[in-house]
């Protein structure tokens, strides 16, 4: 079976949708079947994405597995899918985290399981679609599709303050992405105008790449795209939706939110904002680097004083994603490599951390760290797992977090040693908030609160362990062999930097 002859990308993208439709017909009285179908659909998607891995040729310069159908010829909008190293890696990350999240939802989600699984599967469609779309309009559509399922997941199955959190999430993201729509349309129009009024290829990513846009448009469009992605990542100061969304979302929702949804922003920068508007990217790079540094340090410091376990991990996400944007905008090879690695690692590690937080929340329905203590004697396996992912998050060498961070440091050092110094400094804070959290949770005397819940505090159940083990294995494997990912993404890295290298900053003085 020749993989390239199958429309494999469409399959991977829409298998979850098929699953969702199937589930719609399953009677509400059979949640077991619903769960099984959902898991099956996500596993199928996962399996197909592994096929992609097998069939992918890292040395091939362009996009692979390309599918193209003329969708709206009037405007040159196509249904065009394709992957390169970057998208491939992120697609596999998505499919992996999705089935893990669905599995992790089996226990906690007991009400309206059907709607939940449908929402989750549609979410998967959107996420994968974003990573494989090569048409700007199609990309936008998938980018937005992600919003509604997440809105429902947080809003229906979330915590006490979920309505506020989910509305904030939706409105914030929507402002950014709608502005991006304006940017997309402006870009397409500029292309069309320069090609004698013909819309052919106006939304086609590969064709737009080759076109050089004039300064004003670049600035405007880049800012529009920047806002959308900066809110998504989230960058300082557009990050305040994240702590609320994470805290209120159900565990699996947080996992997928941190694990994949945040990466949509990073991907957007690498795939669209920088290559399409390189001059504008250079112009705004210093400001973005500054914002990244602030995010890195600020996120870590604020994480130190969080009383809620989930909020702590949420702020640590802000800090970690700061590395991603830093790595991208220093325009150095190691920086970009590190940024992409960091995206993958953060997905795995923080995803696992949220799963772990979910474990304790399931048992006691409380995430207040002050109430915790002395858990390691009661649940040693859980403590070990938590500790493992904690160290991964802190960037312990040998585990995957280190490679990403280290590459970003190296890359930013080449840009400016001072920047690298500031960024490196944060590792102290990271160790601080992580280890302190661990200590307060697991060491010392068992807290009164835990003593009161002793019967609930069982160690990791098999299903929970099953969700964590794959992540742990990947963390170790990528920690020891980051080259596995680096070979895949090398093509993208070279390509993006090549384009960026030929750009120069725009003189913004003409604005005045």
């Amino acid at each position, binding site marked *: 079976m020749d993989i390239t002859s199958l429309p494999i990308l469409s399959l991977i993208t829409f298998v979850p949708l098929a699953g969702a439709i199937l589930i719609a017909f399953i009677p509400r009285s059979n949640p077991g079947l619903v769960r099984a179908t959902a898991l099956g659909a996500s596993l199928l998607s996962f399996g197909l994405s592994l096929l992609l891995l097998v069939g992918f040729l890292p040395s091939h310069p362009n996009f692979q597995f390309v599918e193209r159908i003329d969708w709206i010829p009037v405007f040159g909008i196509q249904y065009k899918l394709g992957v390169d190293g970057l998208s491939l890696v992120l697609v596999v990350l998505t499919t992996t985290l999705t089935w893990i999240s669905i599995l992790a939802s089996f226990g906690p989600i007991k009400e309206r399981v059907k709607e939940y699984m449908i929402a989750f599967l549609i979410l998967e469609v959107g996420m994968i679609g974003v990573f494989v779309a090569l048409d700007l309009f199609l990309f936008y559509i998938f980018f937005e599709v992600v919003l509604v399922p997440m809105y429902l997941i947080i809003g229906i199955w979330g915590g006490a303050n979920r309505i506020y959190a989910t*509305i904030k999430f939706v409105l914030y993201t929507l402002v950014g992405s709608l502005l991006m729509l304006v940017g997309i349309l*402006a870009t397409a129009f500029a292309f069309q105008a320069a090609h004698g009024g013909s819309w052919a290829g106006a939304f086609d990513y590969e064709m737009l790449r080759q076109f050089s846009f004039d300064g004003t448009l670049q600035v405007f469009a880049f800012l529009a795209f920047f806002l959308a992605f900066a809110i998504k990542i989230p960058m300082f100061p557009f990050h305040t939706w994240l702590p609320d969304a994470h805290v209120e979302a159900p565990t699996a929702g947080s996992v997928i939110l941190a694990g994949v949804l945040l990466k949509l922003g990073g991907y957007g920068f690498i795939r669209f904002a920088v290559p399409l508007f390189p001059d504008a990217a250079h112009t705004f790079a210093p400001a973005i680097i500054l914002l990244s540094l602030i995010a890195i340090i600020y996120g870590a410091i604020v994480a130190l004083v969080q009383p809620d376990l989930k909020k702590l991990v949420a702020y640590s996400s802000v800090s970690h994603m700061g590395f991603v944007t830093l790595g991208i905008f220093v325009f150095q090879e190691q920086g970009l490599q590190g940024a992409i690695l960091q995206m993958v690692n953060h997905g795995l590690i923080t995803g696992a951390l949220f799963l772990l937080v979910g474990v304790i929340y399931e048992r006691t329905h409380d995430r207040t760290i002050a109430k915790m203590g002395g858990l390691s004697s009661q649940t040693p396996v859980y403590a070990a797992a938590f500790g493992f992912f904690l160290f991964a998050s802190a960037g312990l060498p040998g585990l995957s977090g280190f490679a990403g961070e280290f590459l970003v440091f190296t890359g930013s050092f080449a840009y400016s040693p001072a920047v690298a110094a500031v960024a490196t400094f944060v590792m102290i804070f990271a160790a601080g908030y992580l280890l302190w959290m661990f200590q307060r949770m697991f060491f010392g005397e068992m807290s009164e609160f835990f003593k009161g819940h002793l019967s609930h505090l069982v160690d990791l159940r098999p299903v929970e362990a099953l969700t964590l083990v794959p992540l742990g294995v990947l963390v170790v494997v990528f920690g020891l062999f980051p080259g596995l990912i680096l070979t895949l993404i090398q093509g993208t890295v070279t390509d993006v930097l090549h384009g960026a290298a030929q750009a120069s900053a725009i003189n913004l003085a003409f604005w005045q």
Partner: protein
Amino acid sequence: MSWADFSTASPLVAAILVACAILLGDLVRPGSRPVALVASLAGLAVVAAVTLWAGQTTADAFGGTYRQDALTTFLDLLFVAIVALTILFAPDYLESRDLPLAEFAAVLVFAMAGAMLIAAASDLLVLFLGLELMVLPGYMLAGFAKRDALSTEGAIKYFLLGSFSSAILLFGLVLTWGLSGSTRVDDIARHLADIASGGAPLSAGLAMGLAFMTTGVAFKIAAVPFHYWTPDAYQGSPTPVTGYLSVLPKVGAFALIIRLFIGALDPLKADWLPVIEILAVLTMTLGNLVALTQSNVKRMLAYSSIAHTGYILMGLAAYAAGRIEGLEGILFYSVAYTFMNLGAFAVIAALQRRPGVTSHLDTFAGLGRREPLLGALMTLFLLSLTGIPPFAGLFAKAYVILGAVQAGGTMTIIAVIAVINAAMAAFYYLRVVVYMYMREPATEGPAPRHGSLVWVGLWTASVLTILIGLFPGPLLDAVNHAARALP
């Protein structure tokens, strides 16, 4: 007056005949709902067929006062669809409140005829005639629930203010006629072209004429600051009527704008551009801002309609700035908006048949669970109204934004304002979803069975909303074709 005239105007004629047929049917079998339904739906099918047949040629009729072109056909079909859907949605609601169906349908079809006349008008008087024919039934329909004080109040306000604005519009038309010497749209355009090319200055009289005409149409489309009638009229009317009011008179009024402004006043578009820009911004912003505060679903959707008018006006402004995509945007948006809005109101009407559910948002709590299918459809329409893909609403918004972006300059800023508004709007649209799905149910009790007609209508509206979003190609072609019908 010749046979050819009537042949050209056959859709209009057919519409009037159908209306009469409905009335006749009711005369023969008083109060018989099936008869009224068959008469109206079958009749509308006939009208649609006739429209398509007549649409094969472009022709003028009645001495040049009536024009049949691609635009006419496009708009006519749209009007037929609106009325058909409204008639599908009405019976359940009317029946439960013991209101007659035949009169309802007949009045609707007359209004449709008026709209069709507007769509085909190439003369100021005919334009005005069509306008009045369209809106007078509307006043009646708004007060259709005779015993309901709120309905009567809304109707009276609508009537009073509507008449006021019609008079204003008429005065503007008169001024234009007086200063250009003709009531024919083409002649006016030619006369104004001279002025525009610098031959003669834009006189104060003409400026006043523009002002009056703009005010008049602005009222009809419920643009800010002439929108005051909308919330009261929409809230008071029976829900299916609200749905109808939010669509037909509005699209009809836009048809009026197209024929009048883009037809006759086209040479002066550089002059009415800034005014339209301001109207667009005011309309979309105020509509959205006040909608945020509404706890009555019908009133909220009334303000939402105002906001959508603002977006469509942006398309008009884009046209005035020189892009035909603006006009295309107006047409596309009208279609998408029709189905979304009608669908939303239809769902509300159906939900209101549940005891305890009024148009107050609180009573919608938990309805997502109690009426899963209706809840899902409502969510679909709300999402489409917000502009979330892959539904029709997104494409509609994208279209008008594209027009604005292409126009450039101030229009780009307006485009940005529009998207910020759209984001803001998400709050109140999603709030309904919040109540339906994320709150505990307020009403218990058995679910009423909804008539199959309502379901047919709802499925049609939703499927179209999805199809237009996923495969806008055919509609785009139609819109393209229609937009280029104007000289």
